[in-house]
């Protein structure tokens, strides 16, 4: 399942997390799981403190990463998919 690209996402505010130097650790007490987010995933996690769509995330990251627009968007979709499949994100609305 891939993340709907027009939907908005936000991080699950119930999940405790701790920001490290570059990475972020997110704990899911309900599933008794701990996730270590790499630098890019951690940045997306940070951006998703407020609801954002994949397009909005890609636009925000465009200035920070030296990569083509299509490639960046693909990476964002993949990361949002990954975070979502682990139960770390909440879909806020919208359709694919």
């Amino acid at each position, binding site marked *: 399942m891939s993340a709907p690209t027009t939907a908005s996402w936000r991080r699950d505010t119930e999940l*405790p997390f701790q920001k490290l*130097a570059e990475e972020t*650790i997110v704990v899911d007490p309900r599933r008794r799981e701990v996730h270590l987010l790499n630098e890019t995933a951690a940045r997306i996690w940070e951006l998703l403190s407020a609801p954002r769509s994949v397009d909005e995330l890609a636009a925000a990251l465009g200035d920070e990463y030296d990569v083509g627009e299509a490639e960046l968007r693909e990476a964002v979709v993949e990361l949002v998919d990954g975070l979502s499949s682990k139960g770390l994100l909440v879909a806020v609305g919208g359709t694919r």
Partner: protein
Amino acid sequence: MRRKARREEMLLSIGGVVTHLELTGAQPVFMEQLRARYGAFEMPAAPWVQRDISLRLTLASAAPPGVPGRRADIDAHPLKVNAAARTIAAERWDFSVKVTAESGQPTRASYRGSGRCEMNPFAVDCMLRVLYATILPRVGGMLIHGCGLRHAEVGVIFPGRSGAGKTTLARKTPDADDVLSDELVAVRRDDDGAWRVHGSPFWGDFARGGISMRSWPLRTVAFLEQAARDVVTMTPIVSSDATLRLLGCFLSFAVDRVTVERNLALAVQLCAEVRSVEASLTKNVPTAEIFRKLAPHLGPEVTRKVPPQSAREMISEFRSFLRKHQSYAFKPKGSSMRPWLKSGDSLFIQSAGEAELAAGDILLYWSPGAKPDDDALTCHRMVGRVPAMRGNAPKFLTKGDAMSRIETFENQRECEILGKVAAISRDGKTWPVPGRIGNLARLFGSLVAIPILRMAGR
């Protein structure tokens, strides 16, 4: 007329957290079982000792394993822990307790409560694990699922899940007294902010835990991994990876947001401040080889003497030496026994049961204070004994030779008699305390290699 239920008490200090247990209905054999397990962490239960947890437990006979309905009862009442800001409640088929915080200081807890428990050491152990795992993080510490070892003057923890090799590591440690626990160790900051590892009475299959309350500076966290071959490798890992691994070994029964956030923050701090490695090894690798490979990751001066964190730790360690060797030497300080004792004298102490003590003996006893650094080792002359009367426990009367005041105390409660002076060493000469000549040869035979514990050096 119904007989009044027996009431016993225990005061335990684990990871610096002091718990007073008042046990109603405890049978002597059950108390023996508890003391066999927690004896190294027990201290005199004097009412003036600051307690972090005060728990009144009403004990009931343990149900025999095969009793009808027992299995269903166990299945219907698994462990449930509810930790709120001020209350902690835990229940299982064999116990139910609730404690409430009376005051909240960042470095000290003060919980009071009550509950019921089956007269089964496993039930008490589970209950204590829950309380310590929940309360230690509230005062800046944690219980880590790992094998803790003392190495020279420092401590190392080897966290790992079940089957990772913690007990195997403990079993092959040459001196079993260096094992702080093969199952759960307490880790906590000291007053200077440095992390220390404490032994615990929470054992795994090694079937024994730490021998005293003594803690050691935590130098390295070595996460256990099974190697494919009998070769040891120690691979440094970054703090984020270490945090991730540590969280998997962080004993926590509560899953509320505040608890998880607190535990996460502690794990991050610990892993940011203490070296972490992945220790890849097999059960066939000798401990010496493990520490040879670990040496570059332990930091400098691992043999530099480190004083105990508090007087309480020091006395507890002294008691463990005495229990092990039956005799030990130390240098007292103070002037309460002048002129019999002079500055620089060394005393040879011998373990002694209450029945062996008589008026005139010089006793060494643990006088607990309110705080860990208020505890003292007192060396005074026994002047008498008040037998048990009208339900009161027997009392010992002691006096410093240079003092006029006679002290009275209940052994094991207000103070704990560790032993009596068997010989004294002054200016290079040693002589027995009068009446103890017969013991001297035996005593010196066992003291040859025993270092003197310097009270003043702490």
